[in-house]
């Protein structure tokens, strides 16, 4: 009952005119960003975060969460219409969405994606509402050792479950943490890692500089390269009669929707996993449990429903550990977390006590965002299709300009703009060699929390490392983390004993 009361209070916050307006605006912007090939929620949130300093923190977070939501819906649009995923989270949607569009059923695929997203989003927000308060309560007992253990586990998931080259993943985590250590040593206050003695490094490296560099400049370079050449756009005819027949057919896939929603939600909670593997797994399960697995990949509507319900559910799922524990479940939530720290809304269990109104306002806004994203999505399908026709050579320079201005604003230092350019270019070059970059962004956000947690724990224990293992919760988490870190070794041994190599992990 208490939860319902809090939720009602949350709706009062979410329905304040400014916040409601921002939810609707955020959903629309998110849908457009998601619909553009190559741009997804993480890019939108990273590039637009500096602009949200205009509104109060609560409204800013609500706006960014709405963008996150909208982008999850929008990703399907370019997957279906162009065959290019609007974001990595919508890769699985192309498998059946594109064939459907080529057969002249683009409208059906688009509506299926929207409805599935809505179902996935709604189920996951309900699960979120139910799980968040008890989890936050448990987390209240956590001290620095538990916090540090959790962060180690978050990084370990990348190594164990990320599916990328282990050495490159580990490198990415470490470089993110190392960059976060630049500036002043938190305990002794001495300057540290002032590269080339440049004064700009004294104030540290803002996480936004890395995030905008990688997800703004680096991503645009990547997209310009990938989207070379002409792509063929499918036609979509929309009419009420077709809408009703489509909805009838979609309603038959409710089981797939439920499966995708629950799977996506729980995969989303894991730090390294997030929406992309969640969607791919849901697609795989839908295919393997279907009566007619052969029709998948040739335009089966369930092949659109499964990944779309899963990726929306995962995006909400990844908010759960971010808000309750302060450990982000995806790169987008990592950037949200960084933003919240700037605004003094430090995520973690205390947030639920000290900023009750904000937390429940945000949760309530997710319900609202879900509904508005569905309505806007279906009502403006033709408008989103027009966006896809906009040449990338107009969009790209505008986004580059926004990146430069956005990189300057948080610290008002040109040094950071240069740094952002370097990160963008080096990030792009590294990405071409399959270095995963999401761990670095997660690490630069978590670094300033991880290092003090570790050192405070050690000061508390007079330098005894066993503090991370003696305490029951921290110890359990550490053991899980170590097992995850050793996963690649287990896999190697297993592969050596098996003549046939195991099934490849989805990246």
């Amino acid at each position: 009952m208490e939860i319902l009361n809090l939720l009602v209070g949350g709706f009062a916050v979410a329905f304040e005119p400014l916040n409601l307006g921002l939810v609707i605006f955020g959903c629309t912007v998110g849908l457009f960003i998601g619909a553009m090939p190559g741009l997804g929620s993480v890019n939108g949130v990273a590039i637009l975060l500096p602009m949200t300093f205009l509104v109060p923190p609560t409204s800013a977070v609500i706006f960014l969460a709405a963008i996150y939501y909208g982008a999850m819906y929008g990703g399907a649009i370019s997957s279906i219409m162009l065959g290019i995923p609007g974001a990595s989270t919508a890769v699985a949607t192309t498998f059946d969405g594109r064939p459907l569009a080529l057969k002249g059923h683009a409208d059906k695929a688009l509506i299926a994606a929207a409805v599935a997203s809505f179902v996935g989003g709604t189920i996951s927000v309900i699960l979120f509402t139910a799980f968040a308060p008890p989890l936050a309560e448990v987390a209240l007992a956590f001290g620095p050792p538990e916090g540090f253990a959790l962060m180690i586990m978050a990084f370990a998931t990348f190594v164990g479950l990320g599916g990328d080259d282990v050495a490159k993943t580990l490198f990415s985590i470490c470089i993110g943490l190392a960059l976060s250590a630049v500036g002043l040593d938190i305990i002794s206050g001495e300057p540290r890692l002032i590269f080339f003695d440049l004064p700009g490094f004294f104030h540290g490296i803002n996480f936004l500089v890395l995030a905008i560099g990688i997800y703004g400049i680096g991503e645009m370079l990547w997209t310009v390269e990938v989207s070379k050449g002409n792509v063929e756009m499918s036609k979509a005819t929309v009419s009420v009669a077709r809408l009703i027949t489509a909805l009838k057919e979609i309603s038959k896939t409710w089981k797939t929707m439920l499966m995708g929603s629950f799977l996506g939600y729980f995969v989303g909670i894991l730090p390294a996993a997030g929406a992309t593997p969640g969607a791919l797994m849901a697609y795989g399960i839908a295919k393997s449990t279907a009566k007619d697995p052969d029709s998948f990949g040739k335009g089966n509507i369930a092949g659109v429903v499964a990944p779309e319900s899963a990726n929306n559910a995962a995006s909400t799922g990844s908010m759960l550990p971010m808000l309750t524990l302060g450990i982000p479940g995806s790169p987008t939530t990592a950037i949200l977390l960084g933003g919240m720290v700037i605004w003094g809304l430090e995520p973690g269990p205390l947030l639920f006590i000290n900023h009750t109104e904000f937390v429940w306002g945000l949760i309530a806004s997710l319900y609202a965002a879900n509904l508005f994203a569905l309505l806007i999505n279906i009502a403006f399908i033709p408008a989103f299709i027009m966006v896809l026709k906009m040449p990338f050579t107009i969009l790209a320079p505008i986004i580059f300009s926004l990146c430069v201005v956005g990189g300057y604003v948080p610290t008002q230092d040109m040094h950071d703009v240069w740094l952002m350019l370097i990160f963008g270019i080096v990030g792009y070059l590294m990405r071409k060699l399959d270095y995963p970059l999401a761990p670095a962004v997660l690490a630069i956000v978590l670094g300033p929390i991880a290092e003090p947690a570790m050192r405070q724990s050690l000061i508390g224990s007079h330098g005894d490392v066993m503090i991370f293992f003696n305490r029951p919760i921290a110890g359990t988490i550490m053991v899980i983390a170590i097992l995850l870190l050793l996963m690649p070794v287990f896999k190697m041994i297993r592969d050596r004993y098996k003549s046939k190599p195991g099934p490849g992990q989805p990246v």
Partner: protein
Amino acid sequence: MRTAELVMALCLAAFSAYLMIKSAELPIGWIPGEGPGGGAFPFWLGAVMMLCCASTLYKWYRRSSPQSLSSEPYMDKDTLRMFITIGGSLTVMIGAIHFIGVYFSLPLFLMFYLRFLGRHSWPLVAGVAIITPVFTFFFFEIALLKTLPKGFTEPLFYPLYDIFL
């Protein structure tokens, strides 16, 4: 691709080494009763990074990673041209901000990109090149009160400050 993998791993290893040297300016050892010194955290991160690079280099030598086997070019000619043009124009644009400020540098960059890379019509080019900085000015300087760098063009903005601030 094979060469690129090697060069990248070597560069990153060099950066790791630099990071370790830089961290060593602070105590990196174990301070009894207190735990690691201020430089220890980044120092050991640098060490792990170095190991990761070593592993990548070993795989390169053994030819056991996909990149070390690939004979595809790291960048084909078109990509390279794109990379140099865009990267170069961004560098010039950011460099120019120091002198002529954001409000002259951005439009020049937009004009260059839209006209020479995008081959769009002049009215569209002019539209984007004017609207973007005007929007930026009102959003950041007026609404957010965050001054953007203007270089020597600062005096041109005094009348605007008088009107809006």
